[in-house]
């Protein structure tokens, strides 16, 4: 019979798969990181550098959004959950079960299409645009062009930060929503009249960044809170992280990574900050 000949072959194949699955990698030295897509490039780069220096560790980095990161870290499904917002600010998360590691600071800046003729907005104008009270660029000194607001998806960490700092609790105007920095950038570049916001690592010369009350969204302005729209990039672990997890977090917090990799990726080092933010969004002097 053919079937009986196939069975040993199948068993051998299954055996090989099993052996290769658990033989080479030690679970103790594996770190799984899931969450915020805004942090993904930084953590991924740091992960591969870390692995190059520590051959016996394996770092796996995935996206999925801040909400996914927080909930997976809380249930213990992953070692680290990346998030743009404080766990305390997310409904349904028990922040007391998690340990917060603030590994970087990210600024968020309003961006607009090149053609509207505006380079600077006041804080009030920005607020009125995103609540739908100002509807045309000529009301803020630009061309006669309807304003098209592009928001981020509900629940996005970047959106939460932007709305906390700019709208201060008011309802945003009903508008288009996109779920990634990349798509927002593409749309704002190509569509006249659009305004949105991006995290600083996504900015470049192809897209127009707006200043607010004459303040530019630079790293120096963020460290002193002169530019107010910023948030921490958090890595949440369990209260007692594994040795490998702790080693990876320590590596991200180390001087060489903070002064080189973090800055190159467009973030602000936590070591440079002259102020700090509390989970209820108060900004206080000192780190």
């Amino acid at each position, binding site marked *: 019979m053919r079937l009986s000949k196939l069975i040993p072959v199948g068993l051998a194949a299954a055996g090989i798969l099993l052996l290769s699955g658990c033989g080479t990698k030690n679970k103790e030295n594996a770190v799984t990181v899931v969450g915020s897509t805004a942090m993904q490039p930084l953590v991924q780069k740091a992960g591969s550098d870390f692995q190059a220096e520590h051959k016996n560790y394996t770092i796996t980095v995935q*996206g*999925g*959004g*801040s*909400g*996914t990161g*927080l*909930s997976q870290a809380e249930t213990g499904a992953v070692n680290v959950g990346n998030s743009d917002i404080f766990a305390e600010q*997310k*409904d*349904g*998360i028990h922040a007391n079960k998690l340990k917060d590691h603030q590994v970087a600071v990210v600024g968020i800046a309003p961006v607009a299409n090149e053609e509207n003729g505006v380079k600077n907005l006041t804080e009030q104008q920005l607020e009125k645009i995103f609540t739908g009270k100002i509807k045309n660029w000529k009301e803020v000194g630009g061309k006669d062009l309807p304003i*098209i607001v592009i928001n981020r*998806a*509900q*629940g*996005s*960490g970047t959106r939460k930060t932007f709305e906390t700092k700019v709208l201060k609790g008011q*309802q945003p105007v*009903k*508008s*288009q*929503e*996109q*779920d990634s920095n990349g*798509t927002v950038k*593409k*749309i704002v570049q*190509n*569509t006249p009249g*659009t305004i949105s916001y991006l995290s600083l690592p996504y900015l470049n010369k192809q897209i127009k960044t707006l200043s607010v009350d004459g303040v530019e969204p630079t790293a120096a302005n963020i460290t002193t809170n002169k530019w107010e729209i910023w948030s921490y990039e958090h890595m949440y672990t369990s209260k007692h992280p594994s040795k490998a997890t702790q080693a990876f977090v320590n590596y991200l917090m180390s001087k060489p990574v903070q002064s080189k990799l973090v800055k190159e990726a467009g973030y602000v080092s936590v070591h440079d900050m002259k102020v700090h933010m509390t989970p209820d969004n108060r900004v206080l002097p000192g780190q």
Partner: protein
Amino acid sequence: MNNIQKRLLKPSAATHQDRRGRLISFVCVSFIMILTVAIIGFIAIHGLATFTDNHISVWDFLTKSDWNPGQMGPNGKPEVGALAMIVASFAVTLLAALFATPFAVAVAVYMTELAPKKGARMLQPVIELLVGIPSVVYGFVGLVVIVPAIRTVFGGTGFGVLAGSIVLFVMILPTITSLTIDSLKQVPGYYRNASLALGATRWQTIYKVILRAALPGIMTAVVFGMARAFGEALAVQMVIGNAAIVPTSLTSPTSTLTSQLTSQMGDTIMGTLPNNALWSLALVLLLMSVIFNVLVKLIGRRGELK
């Protein structure tokens, strides 16, 4: 004697084989049944939690269009109105089917009736190619080509139902075409011969006999295409604008059930209202696919050739 009797009364090797085969297929079938029931049950439990645990009224969910499950509305209750998404999903689906059906039927007629050999050789690879392209590519082409084109022609931002249905049109065309081809091929040859023998022209034969006879099959094809359009997520999400607003025109940004699901699933926490509300949207999608399936069955039964 006794030995022979024993052997004759015992089941033969072939019977054993038969039983074993039946057991294997029974196990497989029940596994699939359990899986289907489990999936439906899982979606239903989470989808209904919005109404049972969070006390949102079903009527509000289906008829209101304010979608803000993460925040409290003016009346102190979170706003969970899915009307905009339901309307938009139906709008893109119907429009895409409307665009695609004439093209699909024309291609199928050409391939089976007018130039069976040449047509099949030319068009078959094209159709197969369309099936193989991943939906993210369709979405990207839509974002880079179709959206700006609509913006230049009709004004607005270019995002909306029209852009969504044009992308879906290309995506469901192969489905409808290949199913239509199958149903045209099933029309018996003697129908054609009889019609031509009566003196009907080729066009009259195609129009009055073949298409009529294949109508139930073509309708099934269209419903299958619509089911695919209704469930497509990524490509539509990239061109529809994702604003939870009931579409007022073909070029005003809106959001489909699937686009809302894909863009927000990652940022909600299991068990909270924003997450439950997304499961409710998934439940609506599931119910719709059940309805599409029932429709296909009904059309098939009514139109059986006797």
